[in-house]
């Protein structure tokens, strides 16, 4: 099976020829892989020793190595086509949904629908874990929709507003 693996802006063509035999950009890589506890693995590639964790969250895959988390995108040939189409689609998107980074209480909303916001501007204050946390806009644009009100409790990842 041929895969495209994206990690840290690197794109690698990997070809799994058999279990634990991989071709990386054309050259063969043998790997000694053993599962440990939870989602952790120990891998020996050549003599190099790596312990890492693989997990999946909201459909995305992540690899954790020595407390560093790498998003890991693994696409087979069919996925690549779909992903390419999505990419084209995405480039025409100019809006951003602002999601709650944690469960909490909306303590203040600092913008109004129709207002213009700058990238990095604080648009809402979310009170959680006994602290006031500033939620900032990731893009510049117009506030097209506010889905919450002040003093409202929100769940993690619920949409707070849309910019653009």
């Amino acid at each position, binding site marked *: 099976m041929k895969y495209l693996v994206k*990690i840290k802006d*690197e794109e*690698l063509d*990997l070809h799994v020829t058999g279990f634990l035999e991989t071709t990386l950009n054309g050259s063969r890589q043998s790997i000694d892989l053993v599962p440990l506890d939870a989602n952790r693995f120990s891998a020996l590639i050549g003599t190099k020793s*790596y312990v890492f964790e693989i997990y999946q969250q909201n459909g995305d895959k992540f690899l954790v190595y*020595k407390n560093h988390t790498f998003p890991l995108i693994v696409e087979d040939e069919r996925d690549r086509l779909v992903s390419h189409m999505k990419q084209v689609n995405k480039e025409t998107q100019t809006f951003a949904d602002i999601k709650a980074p944690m469960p909490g209480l909306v303590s203040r909303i600092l913008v109004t629908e129709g207002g213009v916001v700058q990238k990095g501007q604080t648009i809402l*204050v979310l*009170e959680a*874990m006994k602290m006031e946390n500033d939620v900032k806009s990731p893009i510049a644009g117009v506030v097209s929709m506010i889905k919450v009100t002040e003093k409202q409790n929100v769940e993690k990842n619920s949409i707070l507003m849309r910019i653009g």
Partner: protein
Amino acid sequence: MNRIKKILVANRGEIAVRIIRTCKDLGIKTVAVFSETDRKSLHVRMADEAVSLAGLKSSETYLVIEKIIAAARLTGADAIHPGYGFLSENALFAEAATEAGITFIGPSADSIRKMGDKTTARKLLKGTKVPLAPGTEDSISDLSEAKRLASEIGYPVLIKASAGGGGKGMRIVHDPADFEKSMVSSQNEARNAFGDSRVYIEKYLENPRHIEFQILADQHGNTVHLFERECSIQRRHQKVIEEAPSSVLTPEMRQKMGEAAIEVAKISSYYGAGTVEFLVDKYLNFYFLEMNTRLQVEHPVTELITGLDLVREQIRIAEGELLGYEQKDLAIRGHAVECRVYAEDPSNNFLPDTGFVHLHRVPTGPGVRVDSGIVDGMEVSVHFDPMISKLVTWDSDRKGAISRMCRALEEYTLSGVQTTLPFCQFVMKHPVFQSGNFDTHFIQNYFKPEHIEIDDPELIKNLAVAGLNAIHWFIRENKTENSGSVVHDRQETVNLWKIRRK
């Protein structure tokens, strides 16, 4: 002498566990209290007895004086240790315990009142040789009056909670235009954290270092300091990394500041363990910041350089014992560094993260101590502080202690939530931190989220190969077992497709 036989620990998390450990060392029985979410917590497991506080949030549980006194009565505890945070600096709690005939392990209610309230403390110290930063005499609630005073003191100013501590409710204001917003949000945070919205205003020192002195005083008038802790690495005005001793203090300065700290303790008739915090400016002038009338989060670094157990000293003092040593008997041995492990995402502005901890494996070996209250399967919830544990290392010198910290951080496994571990790794390897020459602006001056990323191309390629093969393994195993849950080697359960619960 009043020998304590059973201590109720009015706290949770790592500090409750840490206090229970010393009680066990001393042969003292322990009682844990717990909120509903903490039933499985380590402090409940480790204590000899445990009493439910029947509630979820801290305002329904760990902050309710009556429930805690009732639990002490139920179990026949003859003393209460408040830990830090929660009711630890609440004079009413100390009084309620004393009225119930229970020893409060901490200073008198009177000392707590004098020093716990930051404005009262400032008034008390005015005219002594303890240097104070310019600021308001009293706490202030009128917005326009506050704004006028801020202009008088001169921007930048600091708005601080009178009842405060731990950076909660603190706001820096550079621009008068931001004053109103900052004051309101400081008052809100203070109300939530301490049930007291009073704030006061102080001159904000540029590029200060935060250096504090540990104090111990018995009930017979003997007071010593256990040297300083350097706590300048902060985010959101809260400490993340501490060390002892500080790399900037000369022996002369150490002596001067230590004497000032002892004076603060004496003026408030202090007994027990306490901490006098100072700000040190770039010219090495120091100013009294506040006194914390309780055990500090970062007390282990002092324990490692002095060989003393501060909780044991607190208990001995509460029993009425003499300190048994004088200032001249104390010396600094080696160097200690502490990293606080928070469930926070350093690549996303240190926003707190929540979720279940799947795997928690702590480093051990030479020079490493971990104080932790978390175990596999436990939830980091929105209800409490996101601190998971404290990692502390010691060596005969600072360089060695930092090296051991780098090793311990790398060894530390915590899966399920984002943590400050990679941030701490960044700090330990940073030349400015290693030089010892930094201030409280270290994070804003030197840290960007991309700094915690790894850029070794061979490593990245190998991780990609390994990761793909691991995913392949999951797919293969899932196919043969035809189930979401894959049991391997009859010893471990592995399940990629289980979505991490947040």
